[in-house]
């Protein structure tokens, strides 16, 4: 392949990181929720899609993109709170499968409700004016908006890290992820922690959806494939591990991007092949604790 230069590889790497950034945002939410609540949120893709649609709705009503970046995670997070409080909480103690099944049914409803209000067809979303165009990043021109997606993800990650490391609430969350029983014995209101963690997780999914909207437009079905891919990320990174979600998210993004260069039609299979390999060699994932799942 004569056209394969170092420059091209560099650009491809950046593209993969931008793609991975979205996986990271989704997988962190999934992992956080799983680590604390032992709930696999099958509606995570639906929240992601809803984030994109709420963002679109705000933009259509004259709200600017920057305000939407704040409002969308808040709105989807609030919806997450509502869902946890009213639908998921009654299911704790009934077996791990029930919350999963419930969120699965919920995703059906969310997708269909969006179809009712916004139609089947989907919409394009314009890139915000100041983020249009491409900039020279040393290896070639790269779309500014994609750099912004990477930057926004970094900001969110740093914020989340500070929150978890520096606040007493974060301490509880981290302890709760290790051992919910101990936390409960210590007299912490674990139900409230679970509620808030679910809200944070869905809020992050909503934010990812909004960030993705100018890249792909919005469509009711957009949450489906990315949910399966985010599962792969969490499995590869290790369920419940935030660091794992970040590393695996970026890795999956880069793997997709690089396979796209050499064998585009295999880029989808590559994600799942990666997961199969990791499962064979290290069933608990990169940073997962062995035995957590048995």
């Amino acid at each position, binding site marked *: 392949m004569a056209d394969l230069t170092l420059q091209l590889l560099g650009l491809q790497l950046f*593209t993969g990181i931008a793609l991975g950034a979205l996986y990271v945002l989704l997988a962190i939410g999934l992992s956080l929720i799983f680590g604390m609540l032992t709930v696999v949120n099958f509606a995570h893709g639906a929240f992601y899609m809803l984030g994109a649609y709420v963002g679109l709705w705000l933009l259509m009503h004259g709200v600017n993109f920057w305000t939407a970046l704040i409002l969308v995670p808040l709105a989807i997070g609030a919806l997450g709170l509502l869902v946890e409080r009213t639908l998921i909480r009654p299911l704790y103690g009934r077996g791990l499968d029930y919350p999963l099944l419930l969120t699965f049914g919920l995703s059906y409803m969310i997708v269909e409700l969006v179809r009712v209000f916004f139609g089947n067809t989907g919409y394009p979303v314009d890139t915000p004016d100041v983020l249009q*165009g491409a900039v020279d990043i040393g290896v070639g021109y790269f779309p500014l908006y994609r750099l912004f997606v990477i930057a926004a993800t970094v900001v969110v990650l740093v914020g989340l890290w500070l929150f978890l490391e520096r606040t007493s609430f974060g301490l509880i969350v981290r302890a709760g992820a290790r051992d919910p029983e101990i936390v409960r014995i210590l007299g912490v209101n674990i139900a409230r922690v679970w509620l808030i963690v679910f809200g944070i997780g869905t809020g992050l999914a909503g934010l990812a959806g909004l960030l993705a909207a100018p890249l*792909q*437009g919005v469509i009711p079905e957009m949450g489906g494939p990315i949910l399966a891919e985010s599962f792969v990320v969490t499995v590869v990174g290790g369920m419940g591990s935030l660091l794992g979600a970040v590393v695996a998210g970026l890795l999956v993004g880069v793997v997709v991007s690089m396979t*796209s*260069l050499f064998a585009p039609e295999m880029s989808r299979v590559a994600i799942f092949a990666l997961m199969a390999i990791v499962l064979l060699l290290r069933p608990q994932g990169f940073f997962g604790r062995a035995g957590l799942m048995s």
Partner: protein
Amino acid sequence: MKNNGLTRRQAVVATGAALASPFLFNIARAEAATIKVGFPVPLTGPYGAEAQDQVRAAQVAIAEFNETGGLKGRRAELLVRDDKLNPGEAATRALELIESDKVDFIVGSLSASVQLAVNNVTKVRKVLYNSISQSDAINEAKEFSRYTFHEALNPHMTGGAVGRYAFSKYGKRVVFLSADYAYGHEMVRGFQAVGKAMGIETLADIRHPLGATDFSALLPRIQALKPDVLVISNFGRDQQIVLKQATDFGLKKSMKIVAPILLYTARIAAGAKAFEGVVGGTSYYWGLEKTIPSARAFNDRFRKMYNGRLPSDYGSLAYAGVKTFLMAARQVGTTDPEAVIPAMEALKYDYYKGPEYYRKCDHQAVQSVLIIESKNAPPGDPDVFNILAIDQLSEADLRSCQELGFH
């Protein structure tokens, strides 16, 4: 939407009567007086808007037929079914239409896999079917059913016509980017067939997975190849996303982007920016009414029935697909397939876009391909394309009957 709900409910009433009891077969017999046209299209799913336009246009054909006396007083009726863009569902709906509703004809589909599924069902059960979405496979002897006609263009015809225009106008260094499924492959084959004769140089032939949401991983490489023409063969949302991302990456500055098919509804939904300057093909664009009288008449009728709306490309195919069956049946005075088939094969018609006829060997409608360019029309303006050329195809532009496996 509202409109469509009405037609669906009407269909339900008829079905309900037929289903009320298995012992009411004599009533069903009496109802055989109406000519039933089964119409499976994907009302739900991403092409719902397109499907609803197909229903509207099909209803125009039904209304015209009934107003002009029907078939010896027999009126026609459209039975709309939702195939959900799923071949399994489409096959089940086709079986329902045949078994329970006892339809005379089936017209419909909006994807290759769905039309092949319906074709499979109708072929074995000897029911007339007119397919109104693009596929090369349906022309091949392996899939051929003498009960099936193909009113839509096929990728070979479309890709060929657009290729002939684009390679002579914009240059011969070409990159192909296509969705990795039959439609994409067939389109590329269509482009390559004319490209070979014109001496194009293929710099890369890139396939992306169907339903891809991020093409950014492919675009830097395409930019680095510096082609004259980038041929993007994908459909619907894939097309919309790739055009947007290609615009963002600045590809349009250095190359001409060409797509085999530009959809009217997709262009209206997506807005001007992503599509601006993109050249492609279509079976129909309403702007044809400036030069072609039958297009004018069809558009006017459509406007009148639907408050000034304009028909889309795939919608219009439904009009022609329903109308050819009804007209052929009227000619021979019966809906008996064995009588209708020769009438269809002999039909020379100009219903909405200029002259057409069905080729004998594969029942493919020989017709024109319009070469159009998307222009920077303000939102709300329905005039979104310029017609650059009208390529009136002859049988020589189709794959030959031998090539398709007919002897």
